[in-house]
Each structure stands twice: as C-alpha cells, then as structure tokens.
C-alpha cells in the first residue's frame, strides 16, 4: 500500500494479531534518530537547508540496495497531504503528533517515507533530520530493531550521519544522544488497572530505566488501559542491551497482567463476564458514542477476547475500531467538519456496522 492509500485505510499491519503475545502486547516499535553532518538540526535550520536535507534523503532512497530491500518507496512531503490525512497517519501511529504540529519547519520541507507493508517509516525534518521507525504487531522488539538498523545501514551508504567517536550519534535533544534508539511496546493492561496494581508495577518499571506513558493523555487513568513502555537511556548501552532490557521487563509485565486476568476470572467470574458482555452489548447496539466511551468499551471487549469470554471477535478488528472511532477518521469519512453530536452518532454507526454479524456466542 502506498502512502497515499495508507491515509485512507484505518487498518495498519501492526494491528495483525497473528503475532506473539498479542493478548497483552499490541505493538512493538524501534526508532532511530539520525542527523546529517554539516547541517544544523531542523529547529535551527533555514528553509533552504531543510530542502537540501529532504533532497539528500530522497536521493538515498533511490540507492539500488535500499530499494531492493524495502521496495520502491517515495518520499511524500507533508504539504502534499490534506490536514485530515496527516492526522490519520498520527492515529495509525505511523508518525508523531509533533511532526504535524511543529511549525518551525514548513510542511513543504517535511518529508515522509512509508514502506508498502507500513513496517518502516521515515520522518524527515522532525526534531532530527531523520527518524527511522519500524513498527511490528505483538512483542517483536528484536525484529523491529533489526529492520530499523537495516534501513539505517543502507541509508548511511549515501548519507553522512553526525557521529561523535565518544558520544555516538548526535541528536537535537541530548536525551536521544548515543544510539539514538527509542524502543517501545504498547501494552493493554486492563486487569492490572482493575485490580489497582498497575501504578505500583509501572512505578517499579521506571526504576529500571524505562519510561511509561498512557497512550492518550497524561493522566494516570490511561484511556483504553493502554500504556507505552520505552527505554529512557540511549547512551552507554548497546542497541541489543536496550532492546533486551525492555523485552525482559515487558515479559514480566505480561506475566503480571495474565495472572491478574486469571485472578479476576477466579474471584469474580460473574462481575467480569458482566462487564465485558455489557461493553460488547453497548458497542453492538448504541446509537450515540463519545470517543472516551468507545475507548473504554473497546478496552473491556478486548479484555473479554483475551480472556476467552467473547468469541467471534479479533484483536485486529478492535485495533481498527480504535482508529475508526477517533474524530480524525470520522471527519475523513464524512468529508466535512462534524459537530460533537454528529460525531457521536457517526461513531456509533461505524461501530455497529463493524460488529454486525458478530455473535457473542460465549
């Protein structure tokens, strides 16, 4: 799928559930920050220089080895996409919100590269000249890191990256210097939230050099019970160590979440079955849904699917609905701005349609 098609389709291959540990881990990501030597970093550079960086990257993409590995990918400027299309890519987690909102570099000088399978994306002139990202479904950190590393290795044949022999890859923000690697996993932890244990666990995790963020908003009560875990430190550890550390801690969090689910099932089977079935019932039959309600109910239903309480639904469908229920997608489908009540109605309609024919035969 080309980038121009990717902005229309709410589905992205990272939502695929035929991957390891998808009952808890939604996706794995690796991101490398790179800058070209001899150019100021994006926030400090002239439009002319920004343009030269875009050109240099476009040229590097045409390297035969790069296209042999990643296909004929084109560099699309952010200015070529409609605002709602840019936000679609944000909702699909293919680009960062900051890439769309930052105004220091004009959208005509910001480039975006997306491989056909949507596994590799490169943002040009975000906070750094290049942000090479790879995104995989489930727990596949090593694979994600390998793909980003491969892309980096092929690009450096053409591009001269800013590198210091003592502190490694040089980045605009000193928190990224060294490897420039930010590895992260998106986790669904509803049972730990329900049992009131998530805070302790996530606090413990931050002592081990990781950062935790709620997926939407900064509150401790993360909407949809989604949490992102990523490495804090980028300097002084090898890429492999960073990935292994995150992976081993993630595995422990997965175990904790699964134990919590078993506990819910054992201690309050009726309550939990009621909760997930009720969520499914509302989604299946509601005529108005707010964005927050949809997130919450989709999370409950996902828990039900993960616990084997709801049949006939797939995590993939639920991930897709997470994008479809966002205001961006609603505006995109209807082709115009919508008032809040209109949004609530359209959101409910889309969810009903998606769940039509799904029978909760548990």
């Amino acid at each position, binding site marked *: 799928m080309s980038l121009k098609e990717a902005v229309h389709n709410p589905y992205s291959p990272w939502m695929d559930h035929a991957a390891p540990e998808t009952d808890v881990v939604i996706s794995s990501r690796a991101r490398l920050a790179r*800058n070209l*030597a*001899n*150019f*100021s*970093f994006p*926030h*400090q550079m002239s439009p002319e220089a920004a343009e030269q960086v875009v050109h240099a990257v476009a040229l590097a993409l045409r390297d035969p080895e790069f296209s042999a590995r990643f296909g004929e990918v084109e560099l699309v400027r952010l200015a070529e996409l409609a605002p709602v299309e840019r936000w679609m890519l944000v909702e699909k987690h293919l680009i960062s919100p900051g890439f769309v909102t930052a105004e220091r570099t004009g959208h005509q000088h910001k480039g975006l590269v997306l491989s056909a399978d949507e596994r590799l994306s490169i943002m040009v002139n975000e*906070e750094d000249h290049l942000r090479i990202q790879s995104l995989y479904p489930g727990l596949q950190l090593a694979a994600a890191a390998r793909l980003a*590393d491969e892309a*980096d*290795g092929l690009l*450096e*044949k053409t591009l*001269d*990256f*800013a*590198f*210091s*022999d*003592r*502190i*490694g*890859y*040089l980045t*605009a*923000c*000193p*928190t990224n*210097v*060294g*490897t420039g*690697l930010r590895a992260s996993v998106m986790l669904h932890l509803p049972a730990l939230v329900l049992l009131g244990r998530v805070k302790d666990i996530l606090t413990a995790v931050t002592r081990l050099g990781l950062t935790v963020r709620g997926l939407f*908003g*900064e*509150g401790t*009560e993360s909407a949809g019970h989604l949490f992102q875990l990523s490495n*804090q*430190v*980028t*300097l*002084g*550890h*090898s*890429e492999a160590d960073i990935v292994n550390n995150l992976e081993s801690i993630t595995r422990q969090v997965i175990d904790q979440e699964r134990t919590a689910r078993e506990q819910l099932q054992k201690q309050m089977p009726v309550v939990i079955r009621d909760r997930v079935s009720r969520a499914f019932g509302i989604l299946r039959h509601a005529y108005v849904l707010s964005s927050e309600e949809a997130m919450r109910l989709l999370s409950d239903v996902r828990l039900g699917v993960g616990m084997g309480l709801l049949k006939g639904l797939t995590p993939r469908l639920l991930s897709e609905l997470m994008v479809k229920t966002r205001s961006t997608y609603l505006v995109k489908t209807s082709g115009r701005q919508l008032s809040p009540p209109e949004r609530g109605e359209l959101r409910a309609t889309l969810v009903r349609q998606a769940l039509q024919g799904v029978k909760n035969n548990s």
Partner: protein
Amino acid sequence: MLCERCKQHPASVHYTEVINNQKRQMNLCEACAREAQKAFGLGPALNLQNFLAGLMGPVIAAETPGGKQRLKCESCGLTEEMFGEQGLLGCADCYRYFGDRLQPLFRRIHGSVRHTGKVPQRSRKNYLLVQEVDRLRAELHDAVEKEEFERAAELRDEIRKLEERLGRRGGMGT
C-alpha cells in the same frame, strides 16, 4: 477524580503543600492548575526543557573570560539561553562548544558519557583510533600515579603518534 476547582474536568495535577507540618492537597485539572500557579506565584512549571538546562554543569570562570559571557555555538549561533528554552541543541558542533558542560547532563540522564553502540561504517576507523587513544591515556594516568615514568614516556609517544594519525584523518571528533 474531578478537578476541585471547576468540578468539570478530570483532575490531572496533584499539588501537595506542606507548611509547618500542615499538609494541604489539591487535585486540579490542567487549566485550573495553570491559573492557580499564577495566583500562587509559583513561577513557570518545570518541563523537560527547563530540566535539561538545569542539569548542565556550572560555568567555569576560566572558560569564559569576563565571567559573564554566556556560551554560544560558533557554527549555528545557538546560545545557552536558547538551549534553556527549547532543550534542544542546534547542530552537531554544539556538542563541541558546550562540550564539558554537557557531561553532567549526560551522566544524570544516561548514567554514562560514553557511546558503546553502533558505529557508522565510514566512522569505524576513526572510532577505533579514538578508543585506543583514550585507553592509552587512562594507562598513562595510571603510570604517572605509580611513578612509572619510563612507561609513561613510552605511552605519551604512542599517544602522540596516534593523535597525529587522527589529525590527518580529520580531527578527534567531540
């Protein structure tokens, strides 16, 4: 939990004040917290950017003639104040110009000041030379401490040779 002040938005700022052992807690939404902050004269909220600048090492008087002159990158013109506001360095050379003062910041954020990961193919030879120079320097330091002056002289010559090679290859890097 709803904001105590407007009772409309979820409270996301939890403010605790302890004065003379009297603890007072407030749970506010972001908008109310911002207003409360102004009212209390707490000053601007700390954010990552401010933190970063705060982690930089102190200015060493000898480094800056006149004492008051602030650091500035000669390549891109980024000043220390700009770094303080944005938390971003302006170009690769900033790492050289702000050099020593960034070390404490690296130590705080990363617990390390030394890259041990991937090296770009074209930097590999240089990288290995720099590693070797640094290793010999540590050895030299050791030798001097132990008053092994003959060994120290050898090491010094070896370092000089390597540094000459590095000079020809285009500098030591930062």
